[in-house]
């Protein structure tokens, strides 16, 4: 069974095009860490993404905004391998072709995702949730005999502190508040030491303080990780984003700082419907 | 031995009699009175040999005894226990309306217990049928004449030929003439004259007639000695050629037949599954009691027939709404009583409904006894539609196929056109949103489940016409139903329809090679592999809804 896992994983690597560096290592010498070019996706007739092209630079914190149905979530699905685009190419760095990989492979390559509605494992404790996320050999047998060593333990506890759940680390995730779940999930992302974090509506259902702390958290992360945040709350976006991309009807409408974007007539047109 | 000699004798008698009667309808009535009475006396005697004799005597009498012979064949001939009088009885479900066998004067109604039926054995039936055939050769209805000719066709003895010869002389109806002609041609194939044989073959090879095929097959066969039964090589080759021609037609017809078989099997599967497609597909309830709801439908048919024993056809038709109502009500009861507490826990519904199915089964056992119940098939549903000698489609299957399509279309309309349908689809799509929009989801659930169950009941009516009506009826179909729904794609009625027919036809095309059991296995394996290719069945639900 395990051997199969290795093979299939190996295949993903080999098949990804051109000269390939050692596992996980990716080539961002040209700046961007994510390349999406002319990506189109359609669900029986309805074009969710339409010839969309987007570049995320290494270490940047990018915000995606746009009205409902603009294709934000679909975009994330494409990047994380949940949805296969009809056309277009998606590259991770120069070399790694994400379209040739499946979700686990992509995740292990270092692209992690937080879902719109917080999805944590209710049956498990906060600690266990993070433990599962921990970057480690994730094949079956190693997992079976896996024992946490000291530093991993520390790492988990440290993250628990970062996401402010220190008091609750033995509680089952199921009984956490909505906001706490959001954080836990962010924490799970961090556990995986990702290169790219895709964060879908992180502050939904959060109190003011919580929102501020989330903002701080995200800001503190930029630099070490490339982060893509999808959010409706303009205030929040303004508070964190240096660069904003507006999606509309499945393609990029405009890009720029919050102010540029907000003064762009097309954007106003889109949001206020003229 | 004895039997044969008697047959021969009777045919001769009949033949003479008939020539006579054909020639001129004389004053036989008087002259036949006496032999008729003798014959009837013989008939009353217990033993079969005497009956056989009596029949031949009756045959001798000719036309006038036709009525009695027919009654005898139909088992309508009785003797009164009181005075051993021979009577013809027409069943009126209390007893019989009887009339004197000889004079035909009506004698009123009578209890079942007061009469003895005059039984027959196959042997007697055979000779009886032939004799009647011979007598009917001059019947007024050309169809009857045709049947008569066909019945006599296989007999190769001169008496019959002579009869047919005589008939051919006076026959007006073209088809009957043709039939007679075929008989003669068949005989000519035995002629010693090679030219005649060839002519016969040439003439016959266009006929779709099994006797022809058999005769030709004999021609090209070898006997034990290894030399051909048909000595002449030229004739043999012509025969071979003719056989090839006919066999190709035969092939075509048998393919058509298989397709029909497949469709009708598919129809049954669809009927069984379509109700499930609603409760399971639309509502996500794994209803293990579905089979038992069908069973209820079947039992309803049985009860209806008990209520109106002498209007079979009507009772079956009335059973359809009745079964729908009953199963629907039971279904709603189940939904209200149990399932509504289990929404969002589809697997629990499986367990609960399994319990229900056990209860329903056992209740039926206690109420109707564990024995199968006999559900009669109305005339218009029994027998088959004889297209030609090679191809005939059984009526009941045919009707069920039609019925299945009707049910399907109706259901589709209900879901498309009606308010209920709209609400059902809405709830299926997004329960909470629907509730938010003020759709009474509880009511809709109940009605949906009722609808699905009702259709199961209707399916039961159909099943009662082709299989057992017993406590196990449900179990026999539940697994298959689930297969069909899943194969077609959950929540998609068209899927269910196509899936049913595909599986049915596949099964029927496999059966000849693989045998019934293996065919079923192969179909199952096919389903398993197919689901690997398309994890959501033939017609998967698309879009975001499907993912969650």
């Amino acid at each position, binding site marked *: 069974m395990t051997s199969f896992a290795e093979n299939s994983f190996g295949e993903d690597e080999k098949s990804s095009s051109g000269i390939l560096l050692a596992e996980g290592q990716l080539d961002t010498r040209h700046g961007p860490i994510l390349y999406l070019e002319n990506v189109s996706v359609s669900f029986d007739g309805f074009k969710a993404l339409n010839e969309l092209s987007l570049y995320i630079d290494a270490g940047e914190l990018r915000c995606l905004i746009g009205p409902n149905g603009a294709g934000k979530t679909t975009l994330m699905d494409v990047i994380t391998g949940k949805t296969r685009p009809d056309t277009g190419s998606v590259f991770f760095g120069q070399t790694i072709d994400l379209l040739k990989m499946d979700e686990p492979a992509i995740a292990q390559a270092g692209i992690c995702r937080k879902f719109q509605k917080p999805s944590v494992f209710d049956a*498990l404790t906060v600690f266990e949730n993070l433990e599962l996320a921990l970057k480690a050999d994730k094949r079956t047998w190693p997992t079976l005999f896996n024992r946490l060593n000291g530093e991993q333990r520390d790492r988990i506890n440290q993250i628990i502190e970062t996401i402010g759940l220190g008091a609750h680390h033995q509680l089952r995730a199921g009984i956490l508040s909505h906001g706490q779940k959001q954080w836990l999930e962010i924490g799970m992302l961090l556990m995986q030491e990702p290169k790219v974090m895709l964060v879908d509506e992180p502050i939904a259902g959060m109190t003011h303080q919580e929102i501020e702390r989330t903002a701080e958290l995200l800001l503190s992360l930029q630099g070490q990780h490339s982060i893509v945040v999808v959010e409706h709350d303009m205030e929040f976006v303004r508070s964190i984003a240096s660069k904003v991309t507006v999606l509309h009807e499945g393609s990029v409408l405009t890009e720029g700082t919050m102010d540029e974007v907000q003064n762009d007539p097309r954007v106003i047109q889109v949001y206020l419907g003229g | 031995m004895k039997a044969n000699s008697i047959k021969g004798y009777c045919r001769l008698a009949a033949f003479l009699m008939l020539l006579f009667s054909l020639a001129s309808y004389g004053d036989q009535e008087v002259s036949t009175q006496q032999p008729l009475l003798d014959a009837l006396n013989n008939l009353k005697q217990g033993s079969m040999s005497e009956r056989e004799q009596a029949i031949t005597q009756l045959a001798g009498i000719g036309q006038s005894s036709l009525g009695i012979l027919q009654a005898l064949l139909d088992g309508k001939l009785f003797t009164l226990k009181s005075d051993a009088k021979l009577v013809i009885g027409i069943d009126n479900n209390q007893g019989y309306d009887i009339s004197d066998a000889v004079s035909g004067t009506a004698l009123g109604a009578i209890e079942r217990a007061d009469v003895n039926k005059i039984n027959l054995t196959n042997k007697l039936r055979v000779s009886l049928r032939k004799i009647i055939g011979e007598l009917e050769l001059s019947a007024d209805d050309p169809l009857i004449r045709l049947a008569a000719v066909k019945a006599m066709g296989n007999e190769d003895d001169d008496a019959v030929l002579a009869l047919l010869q005589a008939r051919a002389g006076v026959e007006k109806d073209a088809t009957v003439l043709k039939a007679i002609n075929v008989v003669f041609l068949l005989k000519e194939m035995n002629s010693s004259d090679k030219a005649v044989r060839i002519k016969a073959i040439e003439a016959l090879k266009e006929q779709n007639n099994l006797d022809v095929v058999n005769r030709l097959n004999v021609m090209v066969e070898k006997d034990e000695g290894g030399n051909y039964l048909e000595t002449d090589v030229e004739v043999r080759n012509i025969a071979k050629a003719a056989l090839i021609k006919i066999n190709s037609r035969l092939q075509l017809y048998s393919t058509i037949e298989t397709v029909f078989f497949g469709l009708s099997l598919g129809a049954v599967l669809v009927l069984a599954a379509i109700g499930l497609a609603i409760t399971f597909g639309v509502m996500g309830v794994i209803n293990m009691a579905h089979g038992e709801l069908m069973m209820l439908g079947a039992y309803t048919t049985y009860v209806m027939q008990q209520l109106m024993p002498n209007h079979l056809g009507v009772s079956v038709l009335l059973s359809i709404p009745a079964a729908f109502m009953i199963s629907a009500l039971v279904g709603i009861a189940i939904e209200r009583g149990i399932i509504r507490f289990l929404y969002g826990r589809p697997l629990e519904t499986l367990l*609960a409904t399994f319990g229900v199915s056990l209860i329903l089964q056992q209740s039926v056992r206690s109420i109707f006894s564990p024995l199968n119940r006999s559900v009669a098939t109305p005339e218009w549903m029994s027998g088959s539609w004889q297209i030609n000698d090679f191809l005939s489609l059984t009526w009941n299957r045919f009707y069920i196929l039609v019925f299945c399509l009707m049910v399907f279309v109706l259901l589709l309309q209900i879901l498309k056109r009606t308010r209920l349908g709209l609400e059902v689809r809405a709830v299926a799509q997004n329960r909470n949103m629907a509730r938010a929009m003020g759709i009474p989801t509880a009511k809709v659930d109940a009605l949906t489940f009722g609808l699905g169950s009702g259709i199961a009941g209707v399916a039961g009516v159909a099943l009662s016409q082709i299989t057992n009506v017993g406590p196990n009826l449900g179990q026999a179909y539940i697994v298959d139903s689930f297969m069909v729904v899943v194969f077609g794609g959950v929540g998609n009625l068209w899927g269910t329809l196509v899936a049913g027919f595909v599986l049915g036809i596949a099964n029927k095309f496999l059966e000849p090679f693989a045998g019934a059991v293996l065919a079923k296995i192969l179909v199952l394996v096919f389903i398993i592999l197919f*689901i690997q290719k398309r994890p959501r069945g033939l017609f998967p639900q698309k879009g975001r809804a499907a993912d969650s």
Partner: protein
Amino acid sequence: MKLTGLGHDKTATMVLVALAAVTFIIPFCNLALPADSPMHFSAYTVSLLGKYLTFALLGLSLDLVWGYCGILALGHGAFFALGGYAMGMYLMRQIGTRGVYGDPLLPDFMVFLNWKELPWYWLGFDHFWFALLMVVLVPGVLAFVFGWLAFRSRVTGVYLSIITQALTYALLLAFFRNEMGFGGNNGLTDFKELLGFNIQSEAVRAMLLMMSGITLMTAFLVCRWLVNTKLGRVVTAIRDQESRVRFLGYRVEMFKLWIFVFAAMLAGVAGALYVPQVGIINPSEFSPLNSLEIVIWVAMGGRGTLYGAIIGAVLVNYSKTVLTGLMPEIWLFSLGAVFVIVTVLLPDGIVGLLRRRLQEQHS
């Protein structure tokens, strides 16, 4: 579906103790004590309990798949039956020349359907070790192939349930065919010896009961260890949030497959222990309804707790035994009613009830 709940471990220990009692005390009472002593247990009781324990093991294995991994397998009985057949074939070969036709090689059913030589797949079954190997291997391999196909192409939910049902149904029909050489509808029966001991002797029965008990306890402990490893947590996570687990970088199908195969092997062992105790194995064990019943045991006991499965299996079968004797005419009513009531009123099964009681006692 609480994994860590009040009284969880206590109940588990209790179950273990009860099992231990059954496993060691009953056979002792059966063998050592004289028949007239009040504490003597008849051979009937012994074979009955033995059967229950194998069912419990079967339930346990299903709970692993369904309760923890969330795969509702409606064909789990197939693995049980396959294990049973493997053992049955060994027992058949042990008959040797003592068959009614005295054929040294062929089992009776082959003789009177005049088979000439032993089909290849019967070879090797005269060795006990080989049979044991097959007991785990055959179900294991089948589960692997089936699971590998199904999980990789992400067949989930009812689709998976139904094709597992299709699997067992197909096997039912296949083993039913006499051409298969597994004794057709009659299956394998009339066993004589197990490892040279008369299979009908009290001692062997007692030993079988003990074996079943020990196996069950070991399996129980292994499973408990398993679900508390990281793998166990991943599996539970898969049950609740499959796609999330995938996005964490786990190959979900591999974990499912692992559990599925492991459970199948357990089921196979259960079957192997079951056959010598009931003295017959035939295709009806493959019937979809049987597999459904297993699900019911687990649900009754309470899924996702392991010991719940054990309790459920024993209780359902015990009540079956009693009811079919006490009220043969109407026992189905009561059984059906029980299913309905339990599912509607006790979503967490009997264990759930038990646990609530314990909690009350605490507060």
